[in-house]
């Protein structure tokens, strides 16, 4: 800038810097309420994001889902190079979802130096292990699980067909008394994108049964979930049998709560071929029959 001294340029730079800071903070303040308002208009938002990213969004959605699982394990998480030969079949996203279905690892497996890493082969690997989390813990203390929610939400936004993201997020939302009510709109959003998802209907049923204490609505949803499961079975889409047994289990419990023995027996009969512990189911059927007599 001819005619402007170095001091003048200095002052100008400082002014530009100050202006930059002010703009940054002002923009953030201005954007915050708009982002909040966008919450109610999410379907449009999704389509814009989806259009922008094309098919790559599914890759990112999966990546963010895995990220949520890594968060659930406090960062101690095996990469593709860390899986030991015996464990390679285990999908990385199982644990967080398993925990959501009450099938997570036992406490005995937690807290140890991660076995997935095996023995270090050389000094570089040995030294390197000091600098990333290797202690296996879960985010299961009150309020901690909230940390996985952003990634699940992002995952669902990028791939609305990713049913697991809706189900897992709503499980953790339901277990946080302060945010339990957030589960319903999220599940409904998932249901809009996946109208045939028995998983979402099951989770929605659990929300009404456990959180809203509304067994009638819960029953309707479980029954709808079971009907969707059966439709898929009939269409040879190989629905998850474990999930089918879980739906029936919920229906049995719901019938038990309402004291309807016939309905209980009906669902237990349906459950028998799907259950892993068929004897236990048979015992329940026998006990109910004996009680009825």
């Amino acid at each position, binding site marked *: *800038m*001819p*005619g*402007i*001294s*170095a*001091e003048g*340029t200095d002052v100008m730079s400082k002014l530009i810097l100050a202006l930059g800071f002010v703009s940054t903070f002002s923009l953030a303040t201005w954007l915050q309420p708009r982002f909040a308002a966008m919450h109610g208009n999410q379907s449009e938002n999704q389509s814009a994001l989806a259009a922008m990213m094309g098919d790559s969004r599914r890759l990112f959605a999966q990546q963010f889902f895995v990220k949520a699982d890594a968060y659930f394990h406090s960062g101690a998480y095996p990469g593709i190079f860390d899986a030991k030969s015996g464990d390679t079949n285990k999908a990385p996203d199982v644990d967080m979802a398993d925990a959501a279905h009450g099938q997570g690892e036992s406490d005995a497996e937690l807290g140890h130096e991660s076995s997935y890493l095996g023995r270090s082969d050389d000094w570089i690997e040995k030294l390197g292990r000091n600098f990333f989390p290797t202690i296996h813990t879960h985010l299961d203390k009150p309020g901690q699980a909230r940390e996985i929610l952003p990634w699940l939400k992002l995952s669902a936004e990028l791939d609305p067909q990713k049913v697991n993201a809706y189900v897992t997020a709503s499980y953790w939302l339901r277990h946080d008394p302060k945010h339990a009510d957030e589960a319903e709109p999220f599940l409904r959003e998932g249901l809009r994108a996946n109208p045939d998802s028995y998983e979402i209907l099951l989770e929605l049923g659990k929300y009404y049964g456990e959180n809203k204490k509304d067994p009638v609505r819960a029953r309707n949803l479980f029954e709808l979930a079971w009907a969707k499961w059966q439709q898929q079975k009939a269409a040879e889409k190989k629905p998850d049998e474990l999930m089918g047994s879980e739906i029936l289990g919920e229906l049995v419990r719901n019938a038990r709560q309402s004291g309807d023995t016939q309905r209980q027996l009906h669902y237990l009969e349906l459950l028998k071929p799907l259950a892993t512990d068929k004897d236990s189911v048979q015992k329940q059927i026998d006990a109910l029959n004996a009680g009825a007599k």
Partner: protein
Amino acid sequence: MAEFFSTPKNVVHVGHGGRAKSPHFHFHFSPIYLYSCPVKAVVEIKDLRVEYPSRELGQRTKVAVNGLSLQVAAGEVFGFLGPNGAGKTTTMNVLLGFVNPTSGSASIFGVDVQQPIARQRIGYLPELTYYYKFLNAEELLRFYAKIFNIPEREREIRIDEVLKLVELDHARKRLIKTYSKGMQQRAGLAQALINDPDLLILDEPTSGLDPLGRMKVREIIQRLKERGKTVFFSSHELGEVETVCDRVAILCQGELKTEGTVAEITAKHQMNLERVFLKIVGYQEE
């Protein structure tokens, strides 16, 4: 101006830093010790040959300088003449340590040019001067003064003096990128003088300057000569060389064609310096 040239010329010193004041310094640093010996030839080039990898097909190397030997004595103003591509800049590059000679040797104040300490007492002005665009003249000179280890108090005084000398005092806080070409050339001269050098190497110092600028540079060279400084400069301006030089050398195709005082050369060839120059470079008058 007088203050600037007030350093006694015969006092042997190493820069102006605290190092030179150390009573033990001379015993620890042998190149400096050499400085305290009387050196007659400030610049000494012996049988210098410089080859570059050739870009022409069928030719592996190109000879830029071939068997050049010359000496520049203390207090002399030495003009280094030659057409474009004669090897003047290459010779200067060797003297400044930018290029390693293929064979032969070069020394400044008796120290091999490859030693950084050989450059402690020299000032250098390149033909084209570009300086850090993000610095102003004062900062540029402060940076170079630090390199010469000039103590802080003396540094500021010297910066003032040099800026006044080259008439850039009014623009000292302006970024160099905002200077005109003439001002940039003067800033270049200021940096070459910041250490009050005993030897100045100037590569076509007046190129691209207007007549007033040229006159100012000539004046400065004249003053340096009066102060007993040695000046080694290349130029195309034969009139300028005739005015200020004690001795000249004419280089053509990497070889030294003639060397001596202007009077000696003109007497020997029975023609003025311009005609001698044209004859040497092979120019035929129609």
